[in-house]
Every structure is written in C-alpha cells, then in structure tokens.
C-alpha cells in the first residue's frame, strides 16, 4: 500500500520544511522582540510604527505576503537577496515572508508577557537610575520571556505548518512534494495522511518539549 513512497525523497522535503521553520523562527524571534520593545517604548514614533506594523501584517493572509515577495520583490523590483539560482532565491524570499508575518504574532505574545511583569519592578529599576533600554534588557524582558514560552510554542507550531504556503512560490518543501505525489499517484487520502503524520512528528515533540520548558522556567509569583 505504501510502496510508492520509496520513489520519493520524503526526508529531503521535510528537511527543507525544518530549515524553513528554523531560519524563520530565529528571524521572527529577533524581529518580534524588537517590535515588542518598540510597542512599549516611551518614544511615540516607535510605538506608532510597532502598532501599525502588527495591525497591518497580522491581518494580511500569509499566501498574499509570500506571493508578493516573489511577484513584487523579486520579479518586479529585482530583489534577489544575494542569491543566484531560483532555488535559493525562492527559499530566502519565503524565509523573509515568514519572518515578516510571524514576527507580528511573536511581538504580541511577548507584549502580553511584558504585562505580567509587576509595575513595581520597572519603578524600582528606574529608581536605581537604569535607562529604558537597560530596564527592558536587564529587568523586564528576561521575566517576560520566561512567562511566554507556552504562547511562543503555539506560534512556533503554527509557523511549522505555515511553511507549507512556501510551495506557492516553488520552495521544494513537504507540501510541494505532496502535490507532486498526488499528481502522479492518484491517492489523495493516503498521501495526505502520510504528510499529516509527518507534520505531527515535527510539531508534537515541539509542543511537548516547550510545554515542559514553560513549566520549568515560569516565574512563580
């Protein structure tokens, strides 16, 4: 029943999915943290930018963002992100699109974490003469991160599944291979089940490990 699987490079396709997830997660964590810092900063311009970014990006469908990176940035504006072949360009554009989208959700998760830090902590930091960046970096963010491991795990799982949208611009990840197999084998249900199982193998451990971590590092108040 599953003998046709031998003809396809299933592991290779899922490896591309893992790579997409990894680079996008790292990028989204960094850019999302910067956005969250902007949204709580005392500078109105930065607050305004952060708010506008999050409210715009999280309301645009991911497919639109990903297709725009290829049709708008690459085809029309000629942005290649330093890559030469279609394969690398597509991959980097997909990572860029996923970072742009996911960082809005990372930002909001992190901001909710910042709100769990008691106001007295910030006041004490200011009384000690720490500047805003110092307060954020040394006092607020470390506590905020510890309380949002759970919500961030949700974002990471959603990101893993969202990488399938990259097939729309030709990144050879799991969903692209799934389309190829359905085209050749005429076995819609069986092939879908195989890929659903593959994604569960990626996301279930993520959820379990990060769930355990979130309990371990949470700040008891």
């Amino acid at each position, binding site marked *: 029943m599953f003998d046709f699987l031998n003809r396809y490079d299933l592991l290779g396709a899922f490896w591309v999915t893992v790579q997409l997830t990894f680079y996008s997660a790292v990028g989204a964590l960094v850019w999302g943290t910067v956005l969250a810092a902007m949204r709580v900063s005392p500078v109105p311009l930065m607050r305004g930018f952060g708010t506008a970014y999050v409210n715009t990006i999280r309301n645009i469908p991911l497919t639109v963002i990903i297709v725009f990176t290829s*049709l708008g940035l*690459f*085809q029309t504006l000629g942005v290649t992100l330093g890559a030469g*072949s279609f*394969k690398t360009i597509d991959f980097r554009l997909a990572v860029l699109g996923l970072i742009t989208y996911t960082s809005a959700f990372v930002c909001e998760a992190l901001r909710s974490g910042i709100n769990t830090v008691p106001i007295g902590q910030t006041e004490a930091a200011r009384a000690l003469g720490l500047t805003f960046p110092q307060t954020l970096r040394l006092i607020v963010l470390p506590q905020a991160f510890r309380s949002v491991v759970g919500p961030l795990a949700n974002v990471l799982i959603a990101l893993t599944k969202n990488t399938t949208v990259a097939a729309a611009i*030709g990144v*050879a990840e799991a969903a692209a291979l799934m389309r190829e197999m359905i*085209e050749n084998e005429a076995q819609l249900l069986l092939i879908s089940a195989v890929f659903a199982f593959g994604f569960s193998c990626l996301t279930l451990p993520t959820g379990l490990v990060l769930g355990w971590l979130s309990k371990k590092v949470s700040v008891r108040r």
Partner: protein
Amino acid sequence: MKLRKVTVAAAAALVLSVTAAGCGSSGGGGGGTSGSTSGSTSGGTSGKKITVGIKFDQPGIGLKTPDGTYTGFDVDVATYVAKQLGHQPGDIVWKEAKSADREALLQRGDVDFVAASYSITPARSEKVDFAGPYLLAHQDVLIRADDDSIKKPEDLNNKKLCSVTGSTSAQNVKTRIAPNAQLQEYGGYSECLTGLENKVIDALTTDDSILAGYAAQAEFKGKFKLGGFKLSNENYGIGVMKGSDLKAKINTALEKMVQDGSWDAFVKKNFGPAGYHNEPAPKIGVIVS
C-alpha cells in the same frame, strides 16, 4: 449577570455550530442528489440534471467567466457529450474539478463525468475509467513573441523555465527535458505569465492546449508564441466512475462528435487565435505513449 453573559455566549456558539453543520449536511445532500442523477443518466431520460466536472481556471480549456458562464474546449466537448446522453445544455450542473480532486469526485459519485484536461495515465486508470481520448496534447513552451533564442528543445537547457508546483510538466523538465535549466514553480500559471512578461522567466511550460488558451486571451494577444516542441504526449480522456456504463455511451458520443465536424469547430474556436497546430482527432481507445 455574569452567568447570563455566559449563557448568551453559549447560545451563540450553539447557533453557529448548528448553522455550520446545516451547511455541511446540505453540501452532503447535494452530493447525494448528483449521485442519484448518475443512476438516472443510465436510463437516458431527458430533462434530468447531469453533473460535470471541469476546470474553472484554464482559459481555452475550462474557464468560469465573471458573468457565470463557462467557456473552453472541455466545456464544448462536455456539452456535446451531455446532449448525446440526452441532457439539454440547461440541465448541466458544472462543478469545479481541481487536478488533485478529480479521482475523489468520481469515486464518491459527486460528478457524472470529468472533462478537465485529464491525461490518461496508468496510475489514474486504476482508480477511474476513461472514455476517449478526445484530444492529443503535448507538453510545449510559451515564449515571448520577440524571443528568437529558443528554436529547439535543447535551447531550453540554459534558460529559466516556469511551471506549476508538482505538475507533470514541472517533473518532466527536471528529469529529462532540461535538467540543467532553472525551474521556477508557482501555484498557478498566471504568476508564470507575469514573470514571462517581466523577462524574469524565459519560458512557461505545460500542455500546448493550455498554453494556447492563455496566449489567445485578449490581454496577451501578440505578446507570446508557442515553441511548437512536442515534449510529451498527453491523452485527454473523459473520466467516469470505475465500471460505469457511461464509458461506452460517451465513446459513441465522442466518435459522433469527430464525424460530424463538431470537433474541428471546437478546436478552431478555442485554440485558433494562438497559432496552435492541433493533432488530428485521436481514435477512441488508442493511447499515444
């Protein structure tokens, strides 16, 4: 007060879920009705509905126009076949048959037959029966009208090609036609056409019938041309449920369509403007591999 809010929320959720379930079951009911239609089709009574699966998004093959009508070669063929089976054009219910859904639609009985650029392949023949073929298409390339650098298939090897993610055409490029070419895969042909216009992509490759349909569209007229390479053989058949007696009836209808000249008229009407050189009408049951 708080309790009341919860009750209201629960009631709203309940109403929503019931409505959703209602929609779901009515969809299922629709499937059931068309299933029973297929039973009555075998009787050949006129005035009964017949459900046909076609492509909604391929100009020249099967296209749903903004005003709700359907055009294309597959649509013309399906209308002719339905008429031979005893159904007037007004009794045809068109249903979208995306490439991945075609076997499932037939196996569940959601449609009576599928005419949707459906190439006959051994893997598909295990799941469904095919009437026809009614068109022999070939994989070909669409290039810019002023591009003289692609004259033979070998010229494709250092070019930038485009096709739809996971499609047979895309796989053919990678495995045998031009393994050294760069291949961009997109979700649809429209994205490839934008790239072709922007000169980011040199050639769009898929079945020549589909390419001819795109090139014949008003907004692209004169911009693109077909390469005329026969890179593969695609035998378009009409898919029916496995073991259905419709197969023989559709084959008879297709033979009649070729004999009375309707086939030539359909080809001219749908592919004519693109300078497409069609193959002669295929013989029923003869699959060119």
